[in-house]
């Protein structure tokens, strides 16, 4: 079975990491490329850069950041935030990103997913879904950082974007995000079981148990292919090494650390 992936997510704005990262011996805690190299050497399986400024002015900086990352890092990375056209996708993939992640732009213009997949292949097109539990059951898709309810059903939306050509789903539970109370297992499982493509669980990780649950293929698990992590890693609460060692010990398929350095 393909190894479950551990994916650090770095929020960037104007070419700098936004939240501080607690890495011993970092020369520049705000340099995304140095951090990317550190996480790669530490055993991260992939990386995600999320451009949270996504201003017009910042786009050039983002492309430059992607180029520098591609020169230095030898694992795959995804770039998301503010990508709203095939031209935008093209610029980032040409600069060296392996995948782009579309979120509100996919809601506004679902055909963008199809056009991107047709041009570059579905493996390049990740659709990020921010979901929140709906009163009475099910989950709604939110955009604008969780402020606006689109009224779309998260499971149906996941099916739709996969039918359009998305090769992966990055699923964030807005209820869990920042709580460190655990991934939204029921949501993650519902989406993972509804689509053929891999699902990355995001939002709510607080400890290794939460990761194990999200990646667990059993009836109570989240059935996710990968887990996205931010503050838990950046704040130094857990290291990639600790996570992988423990998940391996629990019998999950994990790429061994020795293959990273």
């Amino acid at each position, binding site marked *: 079975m393909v*190894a479950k992936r551990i994916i650090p997510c770095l929020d960037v704005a104007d070419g700098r990491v936004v939240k501080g990262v607690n890495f011993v011996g970092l020369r520049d805690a705000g340099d995304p490329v140095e951090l990317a190299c550190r996480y790669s050497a530490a055993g991260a399986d992939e990386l995600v850069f999320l451009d949270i400024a996504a201003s017009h002015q910042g786009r050039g900086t983002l492309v430059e950041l992607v180029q520098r990352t591609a020169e230095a890092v030898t694992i795959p990375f995804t770039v998301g935030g503010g990508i709203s056209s095939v031209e935008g996708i093209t610029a980032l993939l040409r600069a060296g990103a392996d995948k782009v992640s579309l979120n509100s732009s996919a809601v506004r213009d679902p055909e963008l997913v199809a056009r991107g997949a047709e041009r570059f292949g579905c493996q390049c097109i990740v659709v990020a879904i921010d979901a929140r539990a709906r009163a009475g059951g099910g989950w709604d898709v939110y955009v604008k950082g969780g402020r606006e309810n689109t009224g779309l059903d998260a499971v149906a939306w996941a099916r739709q974007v996969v039918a359009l050509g998305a090769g992966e789903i990055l699923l964030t539970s807005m209820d869990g995000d920042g709580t460190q109370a655990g991934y939204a297992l029921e949501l993650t499982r519902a989406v993972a079981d509804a689509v053929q493509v891999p699902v990355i669980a995001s939002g709510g990780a607080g400890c290794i148990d939460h990761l194990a649950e999200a990646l667990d293929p059993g009836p109570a698990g989240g059935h996710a292919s990968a887990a996205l992590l931010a503050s838990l890693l950046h704040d130094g609460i857990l290291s990639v090494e600790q996570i992988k060692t423990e998940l391996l010990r629990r019998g999950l398929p994990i790429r061994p650390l020795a293959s990273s350095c």
Partner: protein
Amino acid sequence: MIRLGLIDYGMGNLHSVQRAFERLGATVQPVQSGAEMEGCKALVLPGVGAFDPAMERLRQGGLAEAITAWCTAGRPLLGICLGLQLLFEASDEGEAAGLGLLKGRVRALPRRPGHPIPHMGWEPLVPANPSPLLPAGSAESWVYFVHSYAAEPSDPACNTALVRFADTAVSAAVWQGAIGACQFHPEKSGPHGEAILRRWLAWLAAL
């Protein structure tokens, strides 16, 4: 210094492949025509995306003919990902004829519950017939895959590595004559991928 011709036909992430070889000391020259291949020691055929558009682009620019001439002259080529699939005769993914430099067909991965497609992520290679990419006794290699199709060479001896998928094993890398190819992305596979590229360059240097 080894000069590589990196085939630039508008399908995929040339940048990462180019950087990976440059880190290992090779000179990489993007090539868009047969004439530009002159002076290169070997060709690299990368590619991500779909089979038919890729073949269409290779044929439009005359690159398909030039690659075929190159390989039938026994000169070395390394295919990566879609670049591996294009070397075969045909694919489940499309209608177009492949380059046909290797006999066999590219088939869709079997759909099984609990085994997402695309097959995306890290796997250890299962060694098959030894080759310059994976000589006998090579250490275990964990490499990064992202694909929905896999080649089925007519001659299974072409397989130099397999990868487990669902309840089966599919081709992960092939070698025949001077043609080698990886279904996985060695340029995105950390130190293990780099080791595979380094072995290929060492083999080229000794030719």
